[in-house]
């Protein structure tokens, strides 16, 4: 009996290793390719550790386009969206959680409806709209449509609702303004939700390719994912080593953040999505 148990454990262990490899190997292959010479990328049998470490691949990828511009645009867009989201979400969530007013149901329903409207559905009309505003090919076209988040308002409203009423009454007796109540009571008590949402939002927009592709026509407003996708369009076949080096620039920051904030990030993407 004992032997059977051990065999079972062994099989389970091997299975688990295989599962991890299935998801990790492609990334390891990306890393491996990114530091190889072009010749070695097509050598068989493949080598996992390169014979010559081509660290230059990273500078080659970076220098093949205005990557500093792309990088700065990515930061501006991802951070800009986050700032706008906080500015619009916090007061809205507070009003939805704490006030009664005519039309509240209507405005809240309107907010929730947008949860079901993906960017891939409305890019064409929004493109025409941005064109008429004269905002095409600017970072504004990338920031403004995502300047608020129904998902975030929903999460924050839940969190604001849980703050006990007595706390607010005590604060109001002390003549605290509503502003102060939001800043001193609501925000600190909703810190986990705010962090969770910030991670979710930043990662989503850092990674986004679709919206910048549709809204920009020149390098002035383009972001990293677009710059990296462009590396593929070289004459005379793809240089996989350079391409993978470029992708490392996009992937590594996110993987590092994931390594340190794994629990927060998984909660941001999974648990909040379920409730």
């Amino acid at each position, binding site marked *: 009996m004992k032997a059977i148990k051990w065999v079972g454990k062994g099989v389970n262990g091997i299975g688990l290793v295989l*599962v991890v490899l299935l998801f990790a190997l492609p990334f390891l292959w990306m890393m491996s390719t990114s530091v190889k010479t072009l010749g070695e990328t097509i050598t068989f049998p493949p080598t996992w550790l390169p014979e010559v470490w081509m660290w230059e691949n990273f500078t080659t990828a970076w220098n093949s386009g205005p990557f500093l511009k792309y990088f700065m645009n990515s930061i501006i867009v991802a951070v800009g969206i986050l700032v706008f989201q906080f500015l619009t979400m916090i007061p809205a969530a507070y009003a939805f959680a704490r006030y009664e007013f005519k039309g509240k149901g209507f405005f809240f329903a*309107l907010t929730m409806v947008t949860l079901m*409207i993906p960017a891939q559905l409305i890019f064409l009309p929004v493109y025409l709209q941005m064109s008429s505003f004269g905002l095409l090919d600017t970072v504004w076209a990338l920031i*403004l*449509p995502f300047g608020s988040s129904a998902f975030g308002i929903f999460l924050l409203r839940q969190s604001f609702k849980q703050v006990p009423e007595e706390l607010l009454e005590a604060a109001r007796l002390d003549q605290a303004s509503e502003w102060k109540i939001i800043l001193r009571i609501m925000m600190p008590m909703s810190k986990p939700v705010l962090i969770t949402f910030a991670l979710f939002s930043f990662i989503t927009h850092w990674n986004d390719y679709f919206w910048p592709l549709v809204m920009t026509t020149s390098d002035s407003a383009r972001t990293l994912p677009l710059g*990296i996708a462009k590396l593929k369009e070289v004459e005379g076949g793809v240089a996989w080593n350079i391409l993978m080096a470029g992708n490392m620039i996009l992937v590594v920051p996110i993987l590092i953040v994931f390594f340190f904030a794994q629990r927060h990030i998984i909660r941001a993407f999974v648990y909040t999505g379920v409730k």
Partner: protein
Amino acid sequence: MWKTLRPYAMVAPAVLIFALFFIYPIFYMIYLSFFDWNFVSPTKDFVGVDNFTVLSGDSEFQKVMWNSLFYMLFTVTLTISLSLLLALWLNKKARIYGFIQGAVFSPHIISLVSVAMLWMWLMDTDHGLLNWALGLVGISPVQWLSSPDTALWSLVLVAVWKGVGFNALVFIAGLQSIPKDMYEAAALDESGPVRTFVKITLPMLSPTVFFLTIINMIGSFQVFESIAIMTQGGPINSTNTLVFYIYQYGFRFFKIGYASAAGVILLVLIAILTIVYFKLMERRVHYR
């Protein structure tokens, strides 16, 4: 006075953004679908439902709809079933399982651009790692993305690889919310593992299964990046699906009305799925 106005002022910025960039565009798209317009010309020609009749008779569009359906069907069933199996396996408290859950989840937070290019490299017919590995076990090279017979399957494979971790973790969250005493009662009845799964786990998990099925279906209709980067809809339109089709007609051929009509069809599909989802949620609330 300020007290009555204050809530409106507080919701105004958010509501304005939603109205301007989400609600209004929906109506504008429906409006445009009745016109023939090339974006440059100052006038739009009203053509009624012509765009829709042309669409429904167009063999290319029929292919696109068929591809979208095929992609959706296989991506969703494979993702759901594999992630459920993974969840049942990985739902354990030990620390090592937490690490494995993290590894499985990691593709979900990586940009689709990188995932697409990485798999393009793995699926390279002549120099890709996949064909080399297949060669080791004596399987001749697969054409992956370059043959119309396998290209859509390859995209399904990538989507499943990227999505399984997220879905498995949602399932694990669902599994952990099943009350322990139900399992204890089953153990007292000497119910076997299969019976326990069919009688307790699956029914208790069914809301999660519905939730994931619907959001995966909606998500699969939005597929764009992997197509734009890996295949451009080819070879011979074998991977062209709805969003890429709309993108092509809007941005390459400048047939705005026609692209909007295809957009309206996507809108209807997503709306139906959303309504089904809410009906199911409502039922669930009633039963409680």
